[in-house]
């Protein structure tokens, strides 16, 4: 069964208050950290092997060590713009245990020599932002911020602002568009200063790593995916919700064991292992261990740890449309492949629904996804192209059957030759 770290006391009433949090041992990791040298704290984080919980899975300690040394303004931005469809773990964490995040931020800031921190929280999380505001005030009064200015900044409702450089632009008061990398935020981030950007869950794990020691933490999970992970399970399961699991747990155990699997009589059609932007897996993949490398080897990704289960009562085309529409709506429009590719894809799927497509359109759709992947300014384009591409690849017969069925259903099939659209005039009339 899962090892509970972050969620150990999550349902404790009043955990969001400083009093209860401290009673449960809160802020003792901070005290421990402050007695250590910053380099040693950083070394613990490195030893823990923790990989970023936001989606990219980059080693957190390594990222923190990229920050240039020397005295200058350095920033930490906690990415609380949790917008990936299917992901709702940070919400629960911030709402129920805001001090765990704050403690993690203060420790990370100490380790990386940061003198100003921000929590960029998505605008829709108004309630959680209020909780955070109150908790930050409480922590400050109690002297737990270690002199670190910590600002909770609310976004205005854009998925793209979860992309780290767009987040920085938005935080600076600009239109939230991704920046060109390099320079990477570690060198030139917020206000052109060195900036460390981490996900809520990553930072909330920091106190636990310090408390138990990096080496001890690294014993959890599997070799390249250490520790525990919050997993948001949603879709066609009987018990949707957030679960804390040890990385490497078999996927079936999460989907069927914890979340109860699809309703009686239904089978898994496909599942997204890491939010809607991860390439889909099928029921054949259910026995894979749930960790970063296995998911990558299976052609998908662990992403934010959001498992979305789709059962066989759904059409894959509907799922594709839902996904494509989301990314079309959220594309910032800065780079051409994403802006036009998401838009084009939606139009193609809509044409399938309208019974006006042919199987040839599937080739075009697959090729459009290929043309998007790797060619965009940020990963938003890939975030649509990867799942859509995987759906076309893995469910081509379903797509073809759907196209044919819709054509018949909507009476678009005819044996007559269509009228030529333009009459060609030869010479003078």
């Amino acid at each position, binding site marked *: 069964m899962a090892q509970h770290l972050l969620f150990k006391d999550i349902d404790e009433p009043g955990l969001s208050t400083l009093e209860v949090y401290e009673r449960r041992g809160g802020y003792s990791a901070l005290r421990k950290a402050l007695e250590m040298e910053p380099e040693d704290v950083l070394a613990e984080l490195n030893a823990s092997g923790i990989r970023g919980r936001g989606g990219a899975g980059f080693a957190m300690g390594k990222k923190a060590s990229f920050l240039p040394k020397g005295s200058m303004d350095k920033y930490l931005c906690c990415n609380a713009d949790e917008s990936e469809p299917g992901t709702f773990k940070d919400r629960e964490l911030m709402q129920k245990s805001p001090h765990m995040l704050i403690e993690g931020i203060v420790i990370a800031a100490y380790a990386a020599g940061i003198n100003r921190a921000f929590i960029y929280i998505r605008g829709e999380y108004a309630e959680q932002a209020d909780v955070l505001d109150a908790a930050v005030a409480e922590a400050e009064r109690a002297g737990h911020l270690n002199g670190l200015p910590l600002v909770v900044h609310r976004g205005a409702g*854009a998925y793209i602002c979860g992309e780290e450089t767009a987040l920085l632009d938005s935080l600076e008061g600009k*239109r939230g568009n991704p920046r*060109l990398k390099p320079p990477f935020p570690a060198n030139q981030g917020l206000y052109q200063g060195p900036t460390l950007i981490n996900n809520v869950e990553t930072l909330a794990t920091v106190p636990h790593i310090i408390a138990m020691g990096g080496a001890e933490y690294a014993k959890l999970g599997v070799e390249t995916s250490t520790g525990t992970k919050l997993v948001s399970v949603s879709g066609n399961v009987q018990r949707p919700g957030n679960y804390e699991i040890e990385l490497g747990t078999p996927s079936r155990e999460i989907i069927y064991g914890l979340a109860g699997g699809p309703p009686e009589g239904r089978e898994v059609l496909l599942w997204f292992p890491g939010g809607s932007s991860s390439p889909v897996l099928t029921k054949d993949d259910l026995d894979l261990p749930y960790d970063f490398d296995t998911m990558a080897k299976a052609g998908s990704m662990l992403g934010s740890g959001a498992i979305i289960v789709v059962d066989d009562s759904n059409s894959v085309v509907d799922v594709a449309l839902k996904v494509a529409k989301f990314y*079309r*709506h*959220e*594309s*910032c*429009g*800065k*780079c*051409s*492949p994403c*802006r*036009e*590719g*998401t*838009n*084009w894809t939606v*139009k*193609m799927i809509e*044409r399938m629904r309208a019974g006006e497509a042919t199987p040839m359109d599937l080739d*075009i759709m697959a*090729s459009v996804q290929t*043309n998007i992947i*790797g*060619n*965009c*300014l940020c990963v938003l384009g890939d975030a649509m192209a990867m799942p859509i591409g995987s759906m076309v690849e893995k469910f081509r017969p379903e797509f073809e059957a759907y196209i044919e069925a819709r054509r018949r259903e909507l009476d678009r099939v005819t044996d007559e030759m269509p009228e030529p659209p333009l009459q060609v005039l030869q010479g003078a009339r």
Partner: protein
Amino acid sequence: MPRPQPAEITFSIDGREVAAPANMMLVDAAKRGDIEIPVFCYEPKLGQPVGACRMCLVEIEGIPKLQTACSTPVKDGMVVHTQTERVRDAQAAVVEFLLVNHPLDCPVCDKGGECPLQDISFGWGGGRSRFIEAKRHFQKPLELSPLVAIDRERCILCYRCVRFSQEVSEDYQLILQERGADTYVATFDGHPYVAPFSGNIVELCPVGALTSKPYRFRARPWDIESSASVCTLCPSQCNVTFTVRDERVLRVLGRDNEEVDDGWLCDKGRFAYQAVHVEERVTRPMVRDGGELRPVSWERALSEAASALSRARGRVGAVVGGQTTNEEGFLLQRLVREALESPHVDSSPLGSRSRADLVALANPRLQATVSDIEFAHTVLVLDCEPIDDAPILDLRIRKGVRRQRTKLVVATSRPSALDPNAVATHRFAPGEGAEFARALARHIADPLPDDDAALRDFARSLRAAGDEVVVVAGERSAVEAVALAEALGLAEVSGAGILEIPSGTNGRGLREAGCVPGSGPGYAEAPEGLSTPRIAEALSKGDLTAAYLLHVDPIRELPGRGTWEGALERATTVVAHAAFLTEGLREHATVVFPAEGHPEKEGTVTHPDGRLQRVRPAIAHQGENRAEWQVLADLMRALGVDPGVLTAGMAFQQLVEAVPFYAGLTLDTVGGRGVRWPERAQATSLPDVEREGSAVGREEARAEGEGLRLGTFRSIWAAPEVEHAPALKFLAARQRAELSPEDAQRLGIRNGERVEVGANGTRVRATVALRHDVPPGTVFLEENVAEDGANLLSGEPLVEVRRS
């Protein structure tokens, strides 16, 4: 600030070994090996690359993903491929994406034939469209401004125009609205995009989305000819290309010259060409006959002018306007000095600068260049408003501040558009710029314990960033700027010095050609003569009887309108060269020769930084116009002096022979980019003239008593060319009184109200424009407007403002 001096590196591209400066962007470095990488959003003039269009994807060995060549600095040993299947597929894919929403209506698009999207689609695209869905639709075309039309369906969202507005002109008007495929370019508040540099976005647009309203549908690229020249509408002297069809100028484009204009144009320079082709223009010589100016033959006009001037021999005063070329100025001073035996010729509206002052100002060691502005540690804007006086310098100053972290300090009487970019600003009372510069120079050379704290702080800001200081000075304070530059030791510092903005386009060249009383060509000693204001006085008194007005209408343009009215009234002969019959000429001229428009002219002008530039004719003379150097030569001949000039080239040759520091220059060496004489060995031939003590004090009327201090300024839009160009008319300057909100409140005046500004019974009508930063107790009026010019109140330091 040291300019970047990158080392040469070698890299390999498509199997070729190519040398390029380290860290040059791959797109540019590839050109060194004759390899073109297609781009849309990349434009180095706009600052850092954004990598948005993704057109320039290339393969670099060792990097798994394709990289944008526009944002990848080239490194030694880099191995780049632009012709692999992977690159070709990616580039074709981007073209396909860009065409998804782009209408394929090239045959009816104004950009067709000179369209980068068209060219790149042919060169790098897949050649067929797989997109059969409906494209997005917008209403079209819309007016983005009265000068620019926007067709949003054609826009490929490359960001160039928005970046220009945000990061180059910093007017912050253009933005992108909405998101994703719904994104479109718009102004922030939906108001028209009206700004001094708005036309540049048309030239930047890589598709037919932004088009010039005056040029739209006037010609196809295969109908037109291009002709390179220089814009002579202001001292910036931007390098331009005229687009000509059937002897009519249809368009003006920038001709990038990093040392002059950095590739930008102001809207006046871009659209005022229209004034060359309007009915109102003078295209025939005219003579006053029965109280009216009437068109006459050239023979009659020349003989009337010659005989009238001949009668006034020795009593002729000549005033030369800023748009005069070096050759015209040179011939005019010969005409006046040799043929008319009169020493009174001046090209400065202010007068009173001694030959020694001008020589000191021309010192090559104190001469800053335009690009020095960008790389200096500090730029001081002294007693001028670049956006009005030499607009393109405003952009250069902004560029330095934004990209090189140059520190800007501003000392003016009127609030400057550059104030927000400055680390320090100082406001002196109108007319006290020279005094301030003197005080600043004295403080720097010899600080006294009881010096004013504000002065001390300002001097500190001026010197805090480093030794390389560039002083951009207005004509009124330029001589004092020399003392300041000396106090700062700028002669010893490379990349530092003074850049004077003269009040006329070719103010510098005309000085060097000898249009200064007491100073002949090359600042040679000449018989003492009267300065512009003194000419007016002498004419009014009858000491002079004839006025020669070369491209200037004193009633409109020069200070002291009252004096000039009396002067021209009394003068028996007023010979003028003019393109438009402005008020003073209509009333007083006895002979008017048509002035050439700048696209018709042949000659040279001298940039404020000493760069001689060629003005080359793009179109044939309109109507009966003749070359003006020829008119001046003909007049000399009629007055019995052989000018020795039969062609424009001979006029230039004479000038070069007369000015020692121009020695050896030919039109070929001047060429298309110009030559800076202060950089040539011959610069040492600048005469050595002893300066007598401190600069000559000018009679600035002292302000005593009650009322508001009156300051004046000349707007970029205050020019007859603007009034007569149909597209620009809406911008033509009308008299406005800039007032502080405090004074307005005290006087019970609201923004936009009509007022009268006056003193001693003289009144100027104006519309009130409240400006937050105008120092209380001051009011500013515009010079050189068609009606109600501020020069009615010259000599009145204090005025009262009252509701009319």
